[in-house]
């Protein structure tokens, strides 16, 4: 495997040059220019992912001119594996056609410069790594220019760079590959000058993804596709009720299957389970399904959606922990009842169900372990594995694998998948690799859902038709209570992820009171793409729409009037949406348009959805989106993210778009019972308009998600006269 290929054991690596850049703010950025054999030997082997991980490297110029750029993030669809290399290559003036991107393994140097851990979350990859990757590119370029200037004995100022070549006076030139060895001996410049936006050659251009072809010809290896020599496959029987434990089990029928090698009980993050380890997936799954397990349910709670909703509704009638108290908390009650709206909303648990089922491959050698996984949280997953196996984190080599979606499901504070895989590996003979696979049933029934919520809002309308008072109670489990994120994200007993999109609303409401209850139950919950905005934006944008209707005002004009003066990005998107009037014209009879807007993790979005009713379901014909994400690094990816993100947001409107529990058991098992949007459910067309901007760029993975559901139900109101406050949407 790869072990014999890593630096240090291969004499070829002795020639490499390795340079350190000290970057005060982030404590340890490293640029390295590697000089090694042409066409690395491991590329000819059939190793699962043919790449070597040079420690602490971001840029590697190969003798053949290929430039390998390490991406410090998981790629799972969002396009960061193309965008970060674009940023670096632009400042470096690298030839884009020669750029290759690789996903970096777990390593301190690859931590998010702001969060301090290696992660993908809050759509922060571009926000936090834009300057980091520009500086890496500029430093690398400066060293190459320095090498050329020294060779030609001219001032650096007489050199210019373009497309991986340094050009000097009198037609002299040298390629980056030719200069790399000399450049590696040049001290890394402390001070560098970044390009002015006008000089960008890649940033801001529609650039196709680097990973398209291998994703279209079947050659790209996702984590689930890895085949490590001698590998076994593990499928685990999980408790039928969260937290339950195995009392006893009979594995005779499982062991009788050809190919089943081991059956044993393992500890889980919640309760215990039984692992079946086989030569292949099919016998492992058949074996798991044939286990006779008696579960100890005595100590386990039996959460039940109906009962939880009833309890949540009661809680919503009481004030929770205060998130925001602006103006007079009781102002709403001073407004005559005829000018009050009281609205209760209910939202179910949602499962992320990324297309690639959850999996981790691991080999435990006793004094070290090697792991291959798609993780949004490499740092904490590495720590968790080390803890289970009694190792130091440095003894855990953690490879980041290309991943088939995640939407938050692979950002797991308790690292339960990695712990489960490590617990299996620990029981196997040393050196036997094993791939843990969660079946789709394990995934749908396995918890870590977007929490269910109840919201209760009382709005008092002023004589001008604008909301004078807004009293809002949010009820839902905390995502971070009991995790390492609690101290950072819970303030005054309020989990900020539960109120984001409401606490920081861009609307100017003089008397605004927002509080939250975080009931505790045994259902594991997790952030779901756009997190608190999934429910808060729905509530606010449907209520604001109702207010606009009451005031007999155009929904965009009403929102513009209600915006805080400082809400510049949202204003710019509503204005652009208004200008792109195509969506207003020729709306066919029986169709209606609904509006919604949001600012989510810095990026503002305004959305118009043209909808009709077909077979008692919303049919979404056309969505027009205007967005402001600051500088648009890759407008092609942004367009795709917005087209896909609004489609993803339809999840919560699906008639089978709810996870429900009855007496402790999850009622859905697979895509037959929990059904995300298929082609006919998603918008048939999505037009994306980007507000031109040179502002600091912000992310585009999550911001498209929250607007579509409220925009669709706002359109439905115009067709049916009904307001929809309970999701999922049942027959219209």
């Amino acid at each position: 495997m790869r072990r014999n290929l890593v630096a240090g054991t291969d004499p070829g690596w002795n020639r490499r040059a390795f340079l350190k850049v000290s970057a005060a703010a982030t404590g340890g950025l490293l640029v390295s220019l590697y000089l090694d054999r042409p066409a690395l030997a491991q590329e000819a082997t059939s190793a699962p992912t043919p790449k070597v991980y040079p420690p602490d490297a971001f840029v590697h110029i190969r003798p053949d001119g290929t430039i390998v750029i390490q991406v410090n993030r998981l790629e799972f669809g969002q396009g960061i594996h193309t965008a970060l290399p674009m940023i670096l290559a632009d400042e470096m003036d690298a030839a884009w056609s020669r750029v290759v991107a690789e996903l970096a393994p777990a390593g301190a140097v690859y931590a998010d410069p702001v969060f301090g851990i290696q992660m993908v979350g809050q759509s922060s990859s571009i926000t936090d790594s834009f300057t980091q990757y520009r500086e890496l590119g500029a430093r690398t370029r400066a060293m190459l220019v320095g090498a050329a200037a020294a060779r030609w004995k001219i001032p650096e100022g007489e050199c210019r760079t373009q497309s991986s070549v340094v050009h000097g006076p009198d037609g002299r030139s040298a390629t980056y590959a030719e200069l790399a060895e000399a450049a590696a001996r040049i001290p890394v410049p402390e001070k560098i000058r970044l390009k002015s936006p006008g000089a960008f050659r890649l940033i801001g251009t529609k650039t196709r993804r680097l990973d398209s072809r291998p994703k279209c010809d079947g050659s790209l290896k996702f984590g689930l596709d890895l085949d490590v020599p001698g590998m076994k496959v593990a499928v685990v029987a999980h408790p039928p009720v969260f937290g339950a434990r195995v009392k006893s089990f009979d594995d005779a029928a499982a062991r009788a299957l050809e190919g089943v090698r081991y059956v044993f009980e393992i500890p889980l993050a919640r309760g215990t389970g039984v692992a079946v380890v086989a030569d292949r997936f099919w016998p492992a799954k058949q074996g798991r399904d044939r286990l006779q397990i008696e579960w100890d349910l005595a100590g386990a709670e039996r959460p039940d959606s109906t009962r939880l909703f009833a309890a949540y509704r009661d809680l919503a009638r009481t004030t929770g922990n205060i998130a925001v108290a602006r103006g007079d908390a009781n102002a709403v009650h001073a407004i005559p009842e005829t000018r009050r709206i009281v609205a209760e909303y209910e939202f179910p648990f949602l499962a992320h169900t990324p297309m690639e089922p959850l999996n981790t491959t691991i080999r435990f050698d006793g004094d070290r372990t090697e792991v291959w996984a798609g993780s949004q949280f490499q740092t904490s997953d590495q720590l968790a594995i080390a803890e289970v196996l009694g190792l130091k984190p440095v003894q855990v080599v953690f490879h980041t694998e290309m991943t088939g979606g995640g939407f938050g499901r692979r950002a797991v504070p308790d690292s339960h998948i990695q712990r489960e895989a490590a617990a299996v590996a620990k029981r196997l003979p040393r050196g036997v690799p094993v791939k843990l696979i969660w079946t789709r049933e394990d995934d749908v029934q396995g918890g870590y859902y977007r929490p269910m919520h109840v919201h209760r809002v009382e709005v008092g309308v002023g004589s001008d038709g604008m909301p004078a008072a807004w009293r809002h109670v949010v009820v839902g489990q905390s995502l971070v209570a009991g995790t390492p994120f609690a101290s950072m994200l819970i303030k005054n007993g309020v989990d900020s992820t539960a109120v984001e999109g409401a606490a920081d609303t861009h609307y100017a409401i003089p008397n605004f009171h927002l509080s939250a209850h975080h009931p505790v139950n045994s259902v594991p919950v997790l952030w779901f793409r756009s997190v608190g905005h999934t429910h808060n934006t729905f509530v606010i944008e449907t209520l604001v729409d109702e207010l606009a209707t009451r005031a007999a005002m155009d929904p965009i004009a009403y929102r513009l009037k209600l915006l805080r003066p400082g809400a510049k990005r949202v204003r710019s998107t509503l204005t652009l949406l208004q200008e792109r009037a195509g969506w207003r014209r020729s709306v066919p009879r029986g169709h209606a348009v609904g509006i919604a807007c949001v600012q989510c993790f810095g990026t503002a979005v305004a959305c118009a959805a043209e909808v009709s009713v077909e077979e008692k379901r919303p049919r979404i014909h056309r969505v027009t989106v205007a967005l402001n994400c600051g500088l648009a690094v890759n407008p092609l990816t942004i367009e795709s993210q917005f087209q896909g993100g609004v489609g993803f947001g339809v999840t919560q409107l699906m008639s089978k778009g709810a996870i429900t529990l009855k007496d402790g058991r999850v009622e859905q098992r697979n895509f037959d019972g929990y059904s995300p949007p298929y082609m006919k459910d998603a918008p048939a067309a999505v037009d994306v308009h980007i507000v031109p901007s040179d502002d600091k760029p912000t992310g585009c993975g999550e911001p498209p998600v929250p607007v579509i559901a409220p925009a669709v139900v706002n359109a439905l109101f115009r067709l049916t006269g009904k307001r929809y406050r309970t999701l999922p949407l049942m027959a219209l």
Partner: protein
Amino acid sequence: METYELIVNGRPMEVTTDPGTPLLWVLREELKMTGTKYGCGIAACGACTVHLGGIPTRSCVVPISLVGGRPVVTIEGIGRDPVGRVVQDAWVSHDVVQCGYCQSGQILTAVALLKAIPKPTDADVEQSMGGNLCRCATYVRIREAIKIASGQVK
């Protein structure tokens, strides 16, 4: 355990496995062709779609014992088919993929559609592609790429 002779992407192959093993897992684990994906195991998502005797088929629910002599074409082989190549190229040029995990199944289904109906209507596209789940919801670009490919199919 039984031994089966298969024709996969035009090549004869032999596997020895349990008769109940789905074609999906034979492709992935015995033949090491991992382009065909596991998504649900109940024919509800289409990630495992292959052409079986020319018909787009959910390989996760077809036991190996029922494959018989019907030729199997997977994502690894579809590029050698002229329509297959056009569809793959349209997918790449139109930047369809995001996570990409479902796209083998999307492409195999789209190729079958264009072979049956070279100039499909929107309704044809929805009907044929309707069972292929894409959690990234790349549907808009899939629709557009099928139109592009349709214009290039000879």
